[in-house]
Every structure is written in structure tokens, then in C-alpha cells.
């Protein structure tokens, strides 16, 4: 890792000489005005920036305090985490490297991981990006049905409140073509596939996964950790998509098609294996301000290869939608609400054949999640009170996350917590013993 950091430093030094564009860069031409400085992105100039953050965090789970012995076994988290961000902007291209830092004292893993690392080149109205990237498609604020490109990391649900933190950067090529001023056509190609990450042991290991892996772990060569970490690096797992967005009047709308793999694995009981099902997605989205409410909506059809609903190792086709809004209400309290639902098609076919063990057996036909975030800022945004809640209707599971944050320029102190509840078999309710509280001191630079 020292070698990587050294290489980055050398690369930075190589890029630094002569025409460094920096904060004095302003405007779009060099003449005419008083006090106007040099033009933006003039040929031969580069803008080099280094940023990042360092955090000190203490994390405790309430069940660690049940007995004296448990208190003694408490770990209070990793304490340190950080990020280093490097970017270089030239006249026709940007390069970005964002690294995550985590303490590893036993050499079992790298303390530095790539969050994003990509180059973006500009060819008039066309931008081409390549590298490890997090892309957001769709209008929803919180992981709507159209936001399908990056898998999510569910190995630590204390970070669930930030969707971008959950996303796992993926190697991809992304082309964006600006058509006129308010329309855009995008294409993405993701040559490899990786599903969502789930913990395979410990307090965040979901029962839905451990049940499947419990069966498969009986096989002599099966290692679930390897399975999740493994990239499916063949074109068989390649994914691609097209997205068109435009603005008509005061409405933003989009249409997209995506061919990919569902991010949750399906169990093939007959072969004692699991795989990620291929699917096609066709979706639309819409955003508009109505009566002061920022309204956002998405709808999608996810079409798998189980077109009759009778294949146990393939998820049924489904419809999905989300509808959300936000606005400031009385006293400047901001309300952000989102409802997201998935509706399984051919649900009645599941379990009909006694010889087929269906990966979706026992599940409800719909899966509906409500997300509500209330926030209020005080003292010119230096103090923020926030409460976020997730409610899974069918599973009656919930998560409530209150927080208070003090932000003074680049330094912040945040105290937050998470309270899980509901059906112990549910996606959230199964963590009912994982209530947590954490405090984080962060410096961003």
C-alpha cells in the first residue's frame, strides 16, 4: 500500500508543474471585464486537488451492555476511518481517485480500498468515463427501482442512512451525450458483475442469506466469503443500459433500459448452488415541483427468465415503483418521504409444484418500504437535528435513526443511533438486538 500512495504522490508531482489551474480560475473568457482573471480550462493548464476526511468514531451496541462480561467484550468499533480524494482537471479531461481508509492491524486486508477511480474525457457534447465509478440513475432520493448499476454493501447497517456510502464502485464505461441543453442520452457498459455484499457472520449477517448458505456450506468446496467477494469477470455477467432524460416545461423525465443481474442471489436447490439471475429492466421516472413539494416518481418492470413463475431457481418478474417528495414545513422542518414497492408477478405459481423449491417461497407478493426523514437546522446550519425512519410494511419491521450534528466549517461532531424493531424474520426486524449508538468526530479537508 505504501507503494500505491508513493505512486500517487509521484503522479501528482508529475502533473503539478507549470500551468496549474487553481482557485484563481474564473469565468469563460479572458477579455472584456474588470478584474476578470484567466479563462477556465485554458489549454495546457491543470487543476490539481487533494481532499479527504479523517474520522474518529466510537460505536456501541446496546446488547453489549447487558452483562458485565459483555461490557468487557465490547469493542467500540474501529475508532478510525478516513478518505483521500485526488482529482486532476485538464482542458479536456478529469481524473479522479477516491480512496477509503480503514484500520487493519493484522495484515488480513488492505487498509486502503478504492471507492472510485476514473477518467472522464470531454468531446464537445459527448463525455466518456471509464474506471471504477458510482453512478446514480433515476430520480428517487433513496435507492429507487431505477438505481441499478452499483451493488450495495450491507455488511454494516450503521451506515445505511447514506445511499452513496452503501454503493460499491464498479468498473464501467459510461458515455453521456448532451442533446440540446436539456436532454441527455447515456449508455453504460459494466463488463463484470458483483452482487450486494452481505455479512456472512456476526451481527449483520442476514437470516435470508445464512439460510441459503447454511445449506450450501455442506458442500465441501463452498466458501461463502469467497463467493461474495468473487467478481464474475466474464462477459456472461456483463451488463449494459441506456438512459434518456429530458426536461419539458417544468418537468424532468427519464426513460431507461437495463440488462443486468439481480443483485441478490437465488438458490438452485436441485444443483445445490446459487447464482445471480439475469433480467431486463424497462423504467421511467419523473420529477416536478407541485405546490411547493419536490415530487419524484419512478416505475419499472423487471423481467427475468421465469416468465411463467414456476422456476424455483429464478426470481419471478416484478413491477416496482417509488414515489417521494420533500419540502420545508412549519418552522423550517424539512420533510423527505419516499415509498418504494416491488410487486411480484405470477406469485400464485410459487409453491404449486411440490418438486420445486422456490427461492421466493414464503415471501409476500409485495414488498413495501416507507422512508421518512425529518430534519431541522439551527444557528445558520451549524446544528442539525435529524430523524430518519424506515418501515417495511409487510414484514412490520422498522429502523429509526435519530441524530444530532454540530458542523463548524470543516469539522463536525455527530451523535446518532439506530433502533431496530418488528418481525424477527423480517429484513429489519431480525436486527432487533442490534440497536446502536455512535459518535463521530470528522475533519474534512
Amino acid at each position, binding site marked *: 500500500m505504501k507503494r500505491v500512495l508513493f505512486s500517487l504522490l509521484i503522479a501528482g508531482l508529475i502533473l503539478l508543474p507549470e500551468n496549474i489551474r487553481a482557485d484563481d480560475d474564473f469565468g469563460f473568457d479572458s477579455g472584456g471585464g474588470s478584474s476578470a482573471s484567466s479563462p477556465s480550462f485554458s489549454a495546457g493548464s491543470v487543476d490539481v486537488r487533494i481532499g479527504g476526511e479523517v474520522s474518529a468514531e466510537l460505536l456501541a451496541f446496546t446488547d453489549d451492555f447487558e452483562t458485565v462480561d459483555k461490557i468487557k467484550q465490547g469493542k467500540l468499533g474501529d475508532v478510525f476511518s478516513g478518505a483521500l480524494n485526488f482529482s486532476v482537471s485538464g482542458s479536456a479531461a478529469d481524473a479522479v481517485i477516491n480512496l477509503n481508509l480503514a484500520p487493519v492491524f493484522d495484515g488480513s486486508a488492505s487498509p486502503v480500498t478504492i471507492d472510485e477511480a476514473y477518467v472522464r474525457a*470531454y468531446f464537445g457534447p459527448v463525455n466518456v468515463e471509464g474506471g471504477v465509478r458510482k453512478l*446514480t440513475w433515476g*430520480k428517487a432520493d433513496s435507492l429507487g427501482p431505477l438505481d441499478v448499476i452499483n451493488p450495495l454493501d450491507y455488511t454494516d447497517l450503521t451506515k445505511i442512512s447514506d445511499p452513496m456510502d452503501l454503493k460499491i464502485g464498479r468498473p464501467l464505461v459510461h458515455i453521456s451525450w448532451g442533446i440540446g441543453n436539456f436532454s441527455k442520452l447515456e449508455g453504460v457498459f459494466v463488463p463484470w458483475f458483483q452482487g450486494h455484499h452481505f455479512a456472512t457472520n456476526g451481527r449483520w449477517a442476514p437470516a435470508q442469506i445464512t439460510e441459503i448458505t447454511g445449506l450450501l456450506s455442506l458442500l465441501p468446496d463452498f466458501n461463502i466469503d469467497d463467493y461474495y467477494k468473487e467478481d464474475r469477470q466474464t462477459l456472461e455477467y456483463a451488463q449494459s443500459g441506456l438512459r434518456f432524460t429530458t426536461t419539458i416545461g*417544468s418537468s*424532468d423525465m427519464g426513460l431507461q433500459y437495463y440488462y443486468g443481474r439481480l443483485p441478490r442471489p437465488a438458490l438452485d436447490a436441485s444443483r445445490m448452488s446459487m447464482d445471480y439471475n439475469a433480467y431486463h429492466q424497462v423504467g421511467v421516472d419523473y420529477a416536478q*415541483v407541485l405546490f411547493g413539494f419536490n415530487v419524484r416518481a419512478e416505475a419499472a418492470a423487471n423481467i427475468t427468465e421465469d416468465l411463467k413463475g414456476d422456476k424455483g431457481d429464478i426470481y419471478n418478474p416484478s413491477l416496482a415503483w417509488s414515489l417521494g417528495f420533500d419540502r420545508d414545513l412549519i418552522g423550517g422542518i424539512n420533510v423527505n418521504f419516499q415509498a418504494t414497492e416491488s410487486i411480484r408477478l405470477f406469485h400464485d405459481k410459487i409453491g404449486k409444484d411440490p418438486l420445486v423449491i422456490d427461492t421466493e417461497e414464503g415471501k409476500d407478493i409485495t414488498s413495501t418500504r416507507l422512508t421518512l426523514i425529518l430534519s431541522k437546522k439551527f444557528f445558520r446550519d451549524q446544528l442539525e437535528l435529524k430523524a430518519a425512519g424506515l418501515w417495511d410494511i409487510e414484514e412490520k419491521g422498522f429502523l429509526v435513526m435519530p441524530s444530532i450534528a454540530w458542523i463548524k466549517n470543516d469539522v463536525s461532531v455527530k451523535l446518532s443511533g439506530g433502533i431496530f424493531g418488528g418481525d424477527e424474520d423480517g429484513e429489519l426486524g431480525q436486527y432487533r438486538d442490534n440497536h446502536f449508538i455512535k459518535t463521530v468526530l470528522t475533519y474534512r479537508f
Partner: protein
Amino acid sequence: MKRNSKFIIAVMLLGIAAAAFAQTGDAAAIVDKSRNRINAATIQTRSRMVITAKDGSTGNRVIDQYSKDGSKGESRVVVEFKHSSNPANITGTRFLTIENSGGNDDQWIFLPSLGKVRRIAASEGSGSFVGTDLSYTDISSANRNTDLDTHRILREEGYQGKPCYVIESTPKDSGYQYSKMVQWIDKANSVNYKIELYDKKGAHVKTLEILKLEEKQGRLSPMVTKMSTLTAGTSTTINVDILQYDGNIPETVFTPRYLETGRP
């Protein structure tokens, strides 16, 4: 670029000089002249906002703004926080506002942490604008349509030696953040030197003042403006470090695509 510039440009324009107008205009005409009288095809500014807390500690925001009317005369403004002296959590943030004569303005924001351009409501009312003493309402108040308020001349008096009209403007909409605004407008050149802002209970809560005027490209332009929050003992001073009228701003700047990349 006749009217409806947003954000700091809007605040700055409070003092833009107009041609001398008649000594005897009615109150609404005086306010309208003061707010809207500017003659520039485009305006570009870099402003350094110094935020001062009650204990004297300070923070900075550096804002670049580009303003140009659209083909239908609608105001368009891009605001970006690209300067590295900004707090890291707002660096890279960009706003686009396009005036919509048929309803609320269209506004989009790009937040690096969000990773996409997002449409937002045109006004967040009394909320602080990026941690400053300016509210979103303040930001848009300088281009506020004169017809939305009832105006009356309270008196004529000198302000820093300049003969001024003192005009009280009372919003017709009771839901507006302020119950009234009292402003000192130069009788000779329409510069609006000072505005006192009163809350719904009638208490004087904020004062906006022009501290420094300079001639720029033939226009008398406020280069230092200060908003003070009297109840909190805080203030935000807006120093216009770069000001350029009639410069070239590509049309592609006023698009969501520019918000994503910062590239015209």
C-alpha cells in the same frame, strides 16, 4: 439582463446605479427602478462571504455566479462553490435557477455527495443559505416583483450624506418571511444603501447594508455588502472580488449538464 438576477448578484444589484430619475416618483416606481435598473448582457462575479459568529470567529464561502437572460428574457443564474477555500462539504455544489414567468422558478442542484442533479423547490423560505445570514428569501428579495408589496414613502432623509427616500414595503402575502422592509434609496442614482427587515411580530431582525461602491465598466456597483442578524449578533459580509459585465458565458452553462461536470 434587466431583472431577476439571483443570489449574491441579486444582493449586489441593490446598489446598481441607474440613470438619474425624477425626484418625484411614487414609492412603487422608486423601488421598481432601484431593483430592476441594470443594463448588462451578462454578469459574472466571484464573491467571498465572510460569516462572523457572535464570538467573533469567522468562516468563509467563495461563490462564483454567472447570470444571463434566456431567449425569452427569462433570468438564468448558475451559482457554484468550486473554490477550495469553501468547506469540504459544499465544495463542488452547483445551483441553476431559471425564471419561470408562468409559475415557480425552475431550480436544480448538483451535490457531489448525491452524485446527480436534483430538481428542488424554488424557495426554502427562511432557511439559511449555505450557513450565512442570508435566507433563501433574502436572496430573491432584491428581484422581488414590486407588485407583491405595498410601498409608501415614510420620509426623506440623508444616509451617509446622500439624500434618500425612506420607503416601507409591506408584503401583501402574510406568509412572507418578513412583515415589512424599510429601505434607503438614493434620490439621485437609485442605489439602495440599506434595508431593514422586520419579522412577523414587527421586530427589526436583520439589516442589509452596502459598505462599498465602485465604478465597474461604467456601472456603480456595490463591492462590499453586509447582512447582520440583530437577534443572533452574527453577520455575513459579501466581498465581490471579481465582477465582470457583458462577458462571454456559453449557453451550455445554464443547463443541468453543466451542474454535473462544471464544463460548458
